């Protein structure tokens, strides 16, 4: 399927892409957390998360969650509070807040 790439459509496209990434992540996440039954296995597995590369990936995951969550609020406003009149400004707000939170989380995680 082709998507018309106007500014507001990017909210739609990004919501879908981040959503697809998140459901993939959630399935893996629930599967891995079931490893809590095996204490030694869990503890050695979790050492992987000391690796800076994985920390950067977790940071990216956070940004995906934040964008999807904030854009979800945007969808809610569009559906219930006449937000279709100003959905482009809302998308700008979502992107600005996402970037601020992404930078803030980076500061917390790495400094």
């Amino acid at each position, binding site marked *: 399927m082709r998507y018309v790439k106007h500014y507001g459509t990017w909210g739609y496209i990004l919501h879908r892409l981040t959503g697809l990434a998140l459901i993939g992540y959630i*399935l893996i996440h*629930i*599967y891995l957390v079931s490893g*809590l039954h095996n204490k030694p296995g869990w503890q050695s597995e979790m050492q992987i998360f000391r690796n800076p590369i994985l920390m950067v990936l977790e940071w990216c995951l956070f940004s995906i969650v934040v964008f999807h969550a904030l854009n979800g609020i945007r969808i809610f406003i569009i559906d219930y509070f006449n937000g279709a009149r100003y959905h482009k400004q809302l998308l700008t707000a979502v992107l600005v807040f996402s970037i601020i939170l992404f930078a803030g989380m980076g500061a917390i995680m790495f400094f």
Partner: protein
Amino acid sequence: MAYKFEGSDTSGTFGWYFQRVTGLVLFIQVLVHFYISHNTWDSGHDWATIIARLSNPYMRTFYLVFVALALYHGLNGLWSVIRDYHMKPGMRKAIFAVIMVVGIFIGVLGFITMLTLPNIQ
């Protein structure tokens, strides 16, 4: 879009509405989840810290709801993306079946994990 939808005018309305309801609940739950489980490195990765936290029955209830809603919301979202593409009816049913099977499998796994973990009082 050129495909025939087998359903009445209102079928799908519940899915649309419930996607928004679950989305709002998940918004709050994901904030709580991040705050409590990724506050420090230990809170998210250390076995004893996690088990101690999950020994609280309210915490377990929270996660049972979280798993159920996140899987519903995520897989319903996945299905609505896939539905936008033209498919043969057989393919449509097959993909839907795969989504249901994966969802039930991972959902049951998540529930078993939450309900059978050791309790440390």
